[in-house]
């Protein structure tokens, strides 16, 4: 349970721990660029859209998040059903998240929520905004790094 691999497996964005062959990296750059492009054109990166969402004054953000989840869930179900192998030759599998006491999800999630409303951006948009010309987002991103670092430092003392 305490090996770094199992700790990592509890974090999001960590599936396969295999090294990615360098020839695949351009594909990740391209996918990332497509993601940043969609986030920006769909205005998910806009502080105004986030405020509109938290005031329940438009269906837009709920429609976006909801249809993203449905699309992703159907895709994941199909991938599991077909037992697909990735382009790198691994059997596709998604690690389950450890529930534990659940405190980290409730408390950490709420803290992120406060930050999401204040900056009007979650981590993806925070970086897309730097490219989109809201250059002061570099400071918000640096501050987010500081927040993550402080979490890492306090981690042994926090309830999970």
């Amino acid at each position: 349970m305490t090996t770094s691999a199992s700790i990592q497996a509890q974090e999001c964005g960590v599936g396969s721990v295999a090294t990615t062959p360098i020839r695949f990296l351009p594909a990740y750059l391209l996918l990332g660029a497509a993601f940043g492009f969609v986030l920006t054109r769909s205005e998910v990166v806009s502080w105004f859209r986030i405020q509109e969402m938290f005031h329940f004054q438009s269906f837009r953000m709920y429609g976006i998040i909801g249809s993203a989840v449905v699309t992703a869930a159907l895709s994941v179900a199909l991938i599991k059903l077909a037992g697909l192998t990735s382009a790198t030759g691994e059997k596709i599998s998604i690690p389950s998240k450890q529930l534990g006491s659940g405190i980290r999800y409730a408390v950490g999630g709420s803290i992120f929520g406060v930050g999401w409303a204040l900056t009007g951006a979650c981590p993806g948009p925070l970086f897309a905004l730097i490219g989109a010309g809201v250059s002061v987002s570099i400071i918000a991103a640096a501050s987010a790094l500081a927040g993550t670092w402080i979490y890492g430092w306090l981690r042994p003392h926090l309830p999970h």
Partner: protein
Amino acid sequence: MLVSIHDEWPWYVAGPLIGLFVPALLILGNKVFGISSNLRHLCAAIAPGRVEHFRYDWKQTETWNLVFLAGVVLGGFLAVHLGGTHTISISPATRALLSQQGIHDFSGIAPRELFSWHALLTLRGFVSIVVGGFLVGFGTAYAGGCTSGHAISGLANFQLPSLIAVFGFFAGGLLATYFILPFVIG
């Protein structure tokens, strides 16, 4: 064409496209879609210090995600330079409410009164940029994911922890929207 790169994309185009990044990353390299873990990888790369949480071989296993993140910045740049910008057409009710609270410039992606280098040294700019950014970084690290990792990847895989996290996202967001922002942005 279904949508033009110059217009705002409707939710039923944007949402499914965003959802497709989950299977795309799985199929490409058995990778789980999640942006906020990059904050951890960047800490591990830049300043791991003596913090155990940041001492792992990020180069070996996480380079793909940092490359993806670099792509996100590039994508933001391309979206604006190929598609241009226009005023975000938020609902008139939100616009009225925000003007009442003290926001008057509705011309950018984010209000310049809060998100500009000039605003950084004002109380409301500092709270929006620095305090908000810090809480995003701390909260996502504590929760082990953000909107992409929990709300999209996690819910799509029916993970209870992600559902709890998403309730937290909205609880915190509503708290800040109703009890913090009105006093800060005015």
